[in-house]
C-alpha cells in the first residue's frame, strides 16, 4: 500500500512539474499574440512607430517561447498517455475532440506567426493586423480547447458510467460541459492579464535603469502605458469572471469551494476567511481575517444563503486542506494587480505626465512576477482541489496511473532537464535583447526589418 502511494505521488509530481513548467510558456504564448494585435492596431491608429517596434520585439520573445513550448507541449501530450493510460483510454472515448482541434488551432497560430515574421514590411498594414489577429485567435483557441478537457475532468457530463466504463456517450454534451464557460473565460482572461503585467514589469525595470537614452525611456514609458491599460482592464475582468467561477463551484463542485474557503461546517451566513491555515484538528481556519456573511453572499448572492461545508462529504474524498492557501494566493495576487493598475492610472491622470515615480515602478516590477505566481497558484488550486479524483466523482488519480514502475528516475531526469531549459531560455532572451538593443530599431529600423525577414527563414 505504501509503495503504491509513493508510485502515484511520484507520477503526480512528475506530471505536475511538467505542467507547471509548460504553463509558463503556454500562458505567455496566449498573452503575447493579443498584445501584438493591440500594438499593431494602436500603431496603425496613432502612426507611432514605437508600437510597431514593441510588436516586433514581442514577436522575438514569442518565437523563442513557442519553440520551447512545442517541445514541452509534445512532452505533455505523450506523458498523458504514458503516465495516465487508464485516464486516456476514457478520454479517447469521450473527450478527445478538443485535443484534436487544438492541434489545428496551434497550427493556425504558428502559420500566421510565420507569415507575420516572414512577410515583415512587405505585408500591408491590414495584412499585418489580420495575421496578428489570427495568431491570437489560434493561441487563444488552443488554450480554450485544452482547458475544455480540464473542465470535463471537473464536470464529466455527456456520458453514463457503468462500472467505470463510459457508455451512452454524447460528444457534444461532453464538450460543452457545465464548467466549460466559466473555466475557459477565467483561464484566457487571466493569461492576458498576467502577460500584460509581465511586459509592464519589463518596461518598469528598464525605466529604473539610469543609463537609458531619452528615446529608450520614451519607448518604455509608452509600452508601460499600453500594457497597464491591457492589464487594468483584464484584471478587473478576471475578478468578475472569478466571482462567477465561485458561484459555479457552489453549484457544481461544492466540495472544491468548501476546501478553497476552508469551510468545514455547512452553514447559513457563512463568513469569508481571508488567509489563515485550515486545520483538520480544530475543524476550522486558524488565524486569517473573518468577514461575516461574505462567503454566503459571494456563493449564493444572499447573506443568509446556505453554503455546503466539508462535513457534507466523506472525509476520504476531501481535497488536501492547504488548497485554501493556494486559493487565497491566487485571489490576493489578482486583487493586488487591480490595485496596482488603479494606482498607476490615478497617478497618471493626477500628474498629467507619462513619468511614473520610482517606487511605483518597483512595485510594478514585482507585480510582473506575482502575476505569474498567481497563474501557477490558480492552476495548482484547480488540480489539488479536485483530488483524489482525476475525473470528478468517477475515476481517482490512483486508478488512472501507469503500472510501470521507475517513475522516480524519470522525475530526476526531467526536473534537471526543465531546470537547464529554463536557465537557457532566460539566457537566450537576455542575449538576444543585448545583441539587439532598441537603438537598432529606431536608427536603422528598415534595415533591421529586412534582416528580421531573413531570420524568419529560421523560424
Amino acid at each position, binding site marked *: 500500500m505504501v509503495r503504491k502511494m509513493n508510485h502515484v505521488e511520484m507520477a503526480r509530481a512528475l506530471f505536475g512539474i511538467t505542467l507547471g513548467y509548460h504553463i509558463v510558456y503556454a500562458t505567455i504564448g496566449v498573452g503575447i499574440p493579443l498584445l501584438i494585435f493591440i500594438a499593431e492596431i494602436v500603431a496603425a491608429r496613432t502612426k507611432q512607430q514605437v508600437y510597431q517596434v514593441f510588436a516586433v520585439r514581442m514577436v522575438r520573445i514569442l518565437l523563442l517561447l513557442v519553440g520551447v513550448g512545442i517541445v514541452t507541449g509534445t512532452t505533455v*501530450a505523450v506523458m498523458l498517455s504514458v503516465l495516465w493510460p487508464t485516464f486516456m483510454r476514457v478520454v479517447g472515448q469521450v473527450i478527445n475532440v478538443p485535443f484534436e482541434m487544438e492541434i489545428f488551432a496551434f497550427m493556425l497560430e504558428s*502559420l500566421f506567426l510565420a507569415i507575420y515574421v516572414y512577410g515583415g514590411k512587405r505585408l500591408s498594414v491590414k495584412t499585418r493586423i489580420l495575421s496578428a489577429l489570427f495568431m491570437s485567435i489560434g493561441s487563444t483557441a488552443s488554450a480554450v480547447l485544452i482547458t475544455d478537457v480540464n473542465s470535463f475532468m471537473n464536470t464529466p457530463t455527456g456520458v453514463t458510467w457503468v462500472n467505470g466504463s463510459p457508455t451512452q456517450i454524447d460528444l457534444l454534451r461532453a464538450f460543452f460541459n457545465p464548467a466549460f464557460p466559466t473555466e475557459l473565460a477565467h483561464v484566457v482572461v487571466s493569461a492576458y492579464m498576467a502577460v500584460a503585467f509581465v511586459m509592464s514589469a519589463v518596461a518598469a525595470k528598464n525605466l529604473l535603469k539610469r543609463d537609458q537614452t531619452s528615446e529608450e525611456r520614451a519607448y518604455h514609458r509608452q509600452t508601460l502605458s499600453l500594457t497597464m491599460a491591457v492589464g487594468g482592464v483584464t484584471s478587473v475582468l478576471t475578478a468578475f469572471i472569478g466571482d462567477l467561477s465561485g458561484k459555479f463551484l457552489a453549484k457544481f463542485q461544492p466540495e472544491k469551494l468548501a476546501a478553497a474557503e476552508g469551510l468545514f461546517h455547512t452553514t447559513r451566513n457563512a463568513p469569508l476567511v481571508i488567509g489563515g491555515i485550515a486545520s483538520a484538528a480544530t475543524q476550522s481556519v486558524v488565524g486569517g481575517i473573518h468577514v461575516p456573511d461574505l462567503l454566503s453572499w459571494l456563493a449564493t448572492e444572499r447573506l443568509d444563503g446556505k453554503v455546503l461545508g466539508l462535513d457534507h462529504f466523506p472525509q476520504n474524498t476531501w481535497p488536501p486542506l492547504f488548497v485554501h492557501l493556494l486559493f487565497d494566493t491566487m485571489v490576493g495576487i489578482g486583487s493586488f494587480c487591480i490595485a496596482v493598475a488603479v494606482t498607476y492610472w490615478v497617478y497618471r491622470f493626477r500628474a498629467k505626465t507619462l513619468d511614473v515615480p520610482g517606487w511605483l515602478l518597483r512595485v510594478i516590477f514585482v507585480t510582473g512576477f506575482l502575476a505569474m505566481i498567481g497563474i501557477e497558484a490558480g492552476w495548482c488550486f484547480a488540480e489539488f482541489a479536485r483530488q483524489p479524483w482525476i475525473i470528478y466523482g468517477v475515476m481517482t488519480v490512483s486508478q488512472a496511473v501507469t*503500472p510501470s514502475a521507475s517513475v522516480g528516475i524519470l522525475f530526476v531526469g526531467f526536473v534537471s532537464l526543465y531546470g537547464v531549459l529554463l536557465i537557457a531560455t532566460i539566457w537566450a532572451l537576455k542575449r538576444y535583447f543585448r545583441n539587439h538593443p532598441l537603438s537598432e530599431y529606431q536608427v536603422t529600423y528598415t534595415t533591421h526589418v529586412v534582416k528580421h525577414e531573413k531570420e524568419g527563414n529560421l523560424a
Partner: protein
Amino acid sequence: MNIVALGAAFIWAMISIYTILGGIDFGSSFWRWYFSRRKNWEAEEVAHSFVSPTWELVNSFLVLIPVAIVGLFPGAAYAYGSILLIPASMVLGLLILRGAYWQFGYASEQKRGPIIWVVGLTGLILPGLFATILGLSQGGYVSRGTQGAYVLPLAKFLFSPQVLVFLAFGILMALYLSALFLAQYAKQAGSLETFAAFRRSAQWVGPLSAVSGILAIVSSMHGQLDMSHRLVTWWPILGLSFVMFLVGYAGLFRPVGMTKVRMSLWATVIQLVLAQIAYGCAHYPYVLYPYLTFSDAASNHSMFVTTLVIFVAGFALLAPGFYLFRSLFIKDVQSVVSQTASRGTVTPKRG
C-alpha cells in the same frame, strides 16, 4: 473496407508521412554535424538552411499521431502508454534537448559548436528509436501480468538483436533519404561541389539502408507475428518497392552533371511508401501482437467518425494558409538568392 480499417490506414498514412518528413529533418541535422566536423562549410550550410524552417512543422506533425491514436484507438493508446513510459521518456528527453538547442541557436552565433552536435546527435538517434516501436508491435516482448496489465521487460527489449536491427534501419533510412534530399537541394542551388559531397554520402549509405531494411523484415523471433511469411502475400508491392530502390540508387552513378537526383529522391520516397503499405497490410489487423487488434482497440463509433472528420476538415481549413505561406516563402527565397549568390551560400527553394 470497413471503418476500422479506414482508421488504421489513416494512422498508418500519418506515420508514413512522418517517417519521410522526420527522416529528412533528423537526417539533415546529422549531415550538418558530419560536414561541420569535416570542415565542409558549404555542405554544412545546405543542411542547416533546410532544417531550420521545417522542424517546427515536422514536430507539430509528430503530436498529431498520438492524439489521433487516442481518438481512434484508445485501446492502443492504453496498451502502448502502459509499457512505453521509459522509452517514450527517452525520446521526449532527446526531443526537448533538440528543440531547445535549435531555439537557442537563434539567440547567439557564438554557441554554434554545441548546438550543431546536440542537434546532430539527437537527429541521428531519434529515427532509430522510433523504428524500434515496429519491432515491439510484432510481439514477443510484451507480456500480460496479473489483472491483464501489459508488461515490457525493458532490458530484454532494448538489447534484443532484432530491436538493434530496427534501430540501425531507422537511422540508416533517415540518413539515406536526407542525403538524397540535400543533394537535390544543393543541386537546385547550383552548388555542384556540395551536391557531389551529398551524393557520395548517399552512395555509401544507400545499400546499408536496404540491407538493414531487409534484415528487419526477415528477422522474426519465436512468438512474434511472422512478418516474413505474411509479407509474401504482398510480394508485388514489396517487389516494386525494391525495384524503386534500385532505380533510385542506380541514378546516383551517372556523371555529376547528368545525375537526375530529383528522380532518385522521388524513387526512394515511392520505395518507402510502397514498403510501408506492404508492411502495414501484412501487420493488419494487429496493433500489438498477439493481444490487441485494431477493432478491439477502436473507440466508439461517434468518436471514431468525429476524429476522422476533424482531421480531414482541419487540413482542408489550413490549406489556404499553407498556400499563402508557401508563396511568401518562395518570393522571399528569390530575394535571398540574389543577395547571397556572391557568397556562394545556398538558396532554399522549398516551402
